[in-house]
């Protein structure tokens, strides 16, 4: 019998397959061809995120991002929606911590149209008063819903405790009720003028495209854009010196959400890969790693219980999350902390480490199957300046992590006495 397995080689994106073009105004374009289907994804970032929000107007960057989508000098919001949706495409503009995020997907036959619209939105926003009022009202309704959502409130509270009220990472990107209410259209215009520009901006285009054509088209649309951007800054994060804990009461709920964790590291930190490996053992591998095994599989306490790490230009967080019945909150917290202690006190077994390494390496082809997956991975390499060979070196990086590294990062970053804990649920 001949073999049923077909040989399919799919190279990992890297310097030799990603076309890079930098325009004179500082905007960088990254193009990767994927001709699987006749479609394209555009993933862009401009340096205009919520870190620039004035404290009393937090949510301003997100509101500005939203307003770019809501009308240009040439087209009303309604007309833009009609143009985009008529061709089954999407354009979304949203606020992030450091980045103003642009996202578009479309059939390749419509790429020119979509690039035109996207360029119009970032260069010639009209900021119509009526749309501003609508967006503000919608944002306030979302915040109102969020205030009664246990998971959102646990995360928001956790970040406030971890980074402090004064740090921009400590506030939700969408803002708070009172800060959103305080934002005026004049604030949005001013934020746009100060921050939304091409310097250090990037566009990643992935899909069924011809790079030379894309370079020319984007050049025609954006090369003469002269908006400004302020430089990248991350305020320092004061260390957590004693345990911080807060329990938020949300009446009439059935279960509580727990977020417990520590200050992590920036995305480009040398400990990033060891921390990802350690977290995968602690809270990801299989069904939630050791945390899932203890909290869900062995004790039956939760439907979800897992660990995660995030990182940005500044330090992210290393957290565990679980949703449990109110009477089981303390038991779940104790279990999470017990797994943190075990990761610090006992070396992981070589088998456990090897399993997690093959998982992190082997799952890449699935993650990189679609235009979205490819664009997001390439955008990360570019935005955090990791090097365009970062994906290709995944195997090397992950294989280099040792049993000692896992224990070292656990000891360095997760202190089972000095942690930050937020619980939101019924009183």
């Amino acid at each position: 019998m001949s073999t049923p397995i077909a040989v399919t080689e799919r190279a990992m994106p890297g310097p030799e397959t990603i076309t890079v073009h930098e325009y004179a105004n500082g905007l960088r374009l990254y193009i990767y061809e994927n001709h699987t289907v006749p479609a394209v994804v555009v993933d862009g970032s401009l340096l205009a995120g919520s870190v620039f929000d004035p404290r009393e107007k937090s949510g301003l960057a997100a509101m500005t991002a939203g307003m770019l989508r809501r009308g240009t000098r040439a087209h009303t919001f309604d007309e833009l929606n009609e143009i985009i949706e008529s061709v089954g495409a999407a354009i979304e503009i949203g606020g992030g911590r450091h980045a103003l995020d642009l996202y578009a997907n479309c059939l390749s036959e419509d790429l020119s149209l979509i690039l035109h619209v996207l360029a119009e939105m970032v260069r010639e926003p009209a900021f119509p008063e009526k749309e501003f009022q609508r967006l503000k009202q919608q944002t306030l309704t979302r915040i109102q819903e969020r205030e009664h959502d246990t998971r959102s409130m646990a995360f928001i509270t956790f970040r406030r405790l971890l980074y402090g009220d004064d740090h921009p990472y400590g506030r939700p990107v969408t803002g708070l009720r009172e800060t959103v209410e305080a934002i005026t259209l004049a604030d949005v215009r001013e934020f746009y003028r100060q921050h939304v520009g091409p310097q250090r901006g990037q566009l990643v285009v992935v899909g069924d495209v011809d790079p030379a054509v894309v370079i020319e088209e984007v050049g025609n649309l954006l090369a003469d854009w002269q908006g400004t951007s302020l430089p990248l800054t991350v305020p320092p994060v004061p260390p957590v010196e004693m345990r911080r804990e807060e329990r938020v009461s949300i009446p009439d709920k059935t279960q509580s959400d727990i977020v417990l964790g520590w200050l992590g590291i920036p995305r480009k930190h040398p400990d990033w890969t060891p921390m990802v490996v350690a977290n995968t053992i602690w809270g990801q591998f299989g069904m939630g790693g050791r945390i899932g095994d203890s909290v869900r599989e062995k004790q039956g306490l939760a439907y979800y219980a897992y660990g995660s790490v995030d990182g940005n230009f500044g330090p992210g967080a290393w957290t565990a999350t679980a949703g449990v019945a109110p009477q089981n909150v303390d038991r779940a917290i104790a279990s999470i902390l017990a797994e943190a202690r075990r990761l610090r006190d006992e070396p992981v077994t070589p088998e456990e480490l090897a399993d997690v390494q093959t998982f992190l390496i082997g799952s890449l082809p699935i993650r990189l199957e679609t235009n979205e997956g490819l664009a997001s991975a390439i955008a990360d390499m570019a935005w955090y300046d990791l090097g365009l060979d970062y994906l290709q070196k995944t195997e090397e990086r992950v294989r280099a992590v040792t049993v000692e590294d896992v224990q070292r990062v656990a000891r360095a970053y997760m202190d089972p006495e000095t942690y930050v804990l937020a619980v939101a649920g019924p009183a």
Partner: protein
Amino acid sequence: MGTEHTVADTVAPTLAVVGDVTRTQLENGLTVVLKEMHTAPVISTWVWYRVGSRNEVPGKTGISHWVEHMQFKGTPKYPTGTYDRLLSREGGIFNAMTWFDYTAYFETLPANRVELALDIESDRMVNSLYDPEEVERERTVIISERSMNENRPTFLLAEEVQSTALKVHPYRHEIIGWLADLKTMTRDDLYTHYRRYYAPNNAVLVLVGAFHTQPMLELVRRYFGDLDPRPLPRDVIPPEPPQRGERRVEVHGGGDTHYVQMAFHAVPATHEDFFPMIVLDAVLGGAKSFGGGGSSNRSSRLYRGLVATGLAADADSWVGPMIDPYLWWFDATVNEGHSHEEVEQALWQEIQRVQEDGVSPEELRKAVKQVRAHFVYGAQSITNQARWLGFAEVVTSQEWLASYLENVAAVTAEDVQRVAQTYLRRDQVTVGWYVASTG
């Protein structure tokens, strides 16, 4: 730049998803659907069982979903917890899902590890243990899953609307089941359900990815060919009696935000009005990708009538392909300063407008293009293509999937108006209001 742009070629003659599907049946009744896809060194393996909450009876609601959870709890060959490790360390992704009409399991793995998936799936089709202690631990996990849902006001409201709109058909209860049943079902109930429905002659195996069809079929025979068929139950699923007049429910609960939902009776996937219904749904609430979410719906009629006017923070609709008649949903989140009445009134106004004035050729053209685009986007993923093929097999047929776009494109403005008049009637609605205690 101008607004002019032409939408040429709105109907592609064939979809990427349709080409070269091999469908066959083994002697034991297992349906096998194979499709080669050589875009990544990956194979996605799915097993679909023709059982879901549609097959459940009062007192045992939620049993299909609980059985799905128990299928991860081990066999003599693969004790509990081993799947996670074996699949994950290969870099695989895996999961399972229970729907009204089916229960499905999948593993997407590097192509050269496909036999692991075949071995796991053929083994747990017949050898699962249902250890009583594992059953008890999973009981609390599932109750926790239900609690997570109950934390969302829209779940509480939808559960109430659904069980009011449907009085007899088992689509009336949520897939997760009623809490009382989750507390009382026993290990033997679960095991009996498993033995009754999990058999090759009640299952569909789908493989999509980097393989050669003929030798793959031989491999499939080696893993599944020896499993014995079983006598299948003849479930009598009671049809829903006609609704004679509007029904209304209110759910009161915490929070500051009010919600409105409306549900009408929809036709099943195989009904001649299904495609006009899909097109009308796209015009009203935006096109949805097949089996998944949609992109934005800001040019839809509901958005323009409810969100752009400031009444609601969002407004949406949903109807999908089902074996039996289910529901056509409309929902909206009421903005502060506005009332349930205003939002409900605006929803009716949009429905009436279609009933009285119909839809435009541009709206039809847009719906077709959106459906086509969603198929193209979804076709990138091997896992997703396998999901489409399996879904079509258990809910309708491969032919239905293959001609989906063609059928959408054939819908006329008259069809759409007629469907609006026939199904979106005031005497056929169940209206639900979530009344927030502090809103």
